[in-house]
């Protein structure tokens, strides 16, 4: 799942799909945490998974806010066209 998400991030140009692939990667990490938490009988895995979900929510909010403000001025969603900082 992680690999699929990473491929998604690298392959697509649509910024929203990139953000969603990042969410996919975060979820993959969550699944790993929960699986190991069950394997070793340790609660720390699930606790950390909750924190990961929290952080993902925060990051999604901020990322989308950036996208919205970007889109408002330029109306682009293609990450290749956001190249004002390129030399």
């Amino acid at each position, binding site marked *: 799942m992680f690999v699929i*998400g990473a491929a998604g991030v690298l*392959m697509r140009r649509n910024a929203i799909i990139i953000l969603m692939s990042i969410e996919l990667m975060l979820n993959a990490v*969550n699944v790993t945490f929960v699986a190991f938490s069950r394997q070793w009988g340790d609660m720390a895995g*699930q606790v950390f998974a909750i924190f990961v*979900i929290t952080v993902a929510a925060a990051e999604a909010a901020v990322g989308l806010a950036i996208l919205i403000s970007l889109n408002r001025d330029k109306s682009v969603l293609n990450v290749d066209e956001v190249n004002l900082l390129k030399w």
Partner: protein
Amino acid sequence: MELPFFYLFSTGIIVASILMVTRANVIHAALLLVLTFFLLSGVYVLAGAEFLAVVQILLYAGGIMVLYLFSIMLMNVDVSVRLRQYHRQTFFVVIIAVALAVEVWLVLARGEAYPDYKGFAWFVGATPGNVEALGSVLYTKYLFPFEVASILLLAAMIGAIVLAKRTIDR
């Protein structure tokens, strides 16, 4: 009894995620992601983490994805335009992805026992239950990260509002 369900869920997850990263229609991709989250929640229930499963549905599928959907709708995504959604380097990406997958598989398949690990012990189906165990460890041992996470959320909330605010030039 649990094993066929697990296979069912995992196949569903993999199919849904592959479909998701390849859709041209952004709304379809978002819906497939929601489906992935549902199946993930099922996997969590199988692993004995019921609280996490419900939190996943509540927050991820019910909260974050609604946020994504709203943003997609507010951003005028032309869903029917199929122009060059993929990079030119797609072929190399696929090769690298396969290499990464093989690497991750090799690392995880070692599965050696983790020697003398001191953690908070809890087993599937224990009597106090998942929620109580989670609560008792979340508020004692991991209290500091908990508070830090709440401040992080506050910062993210304020940041998002400031970033997306329409500046009124008069």
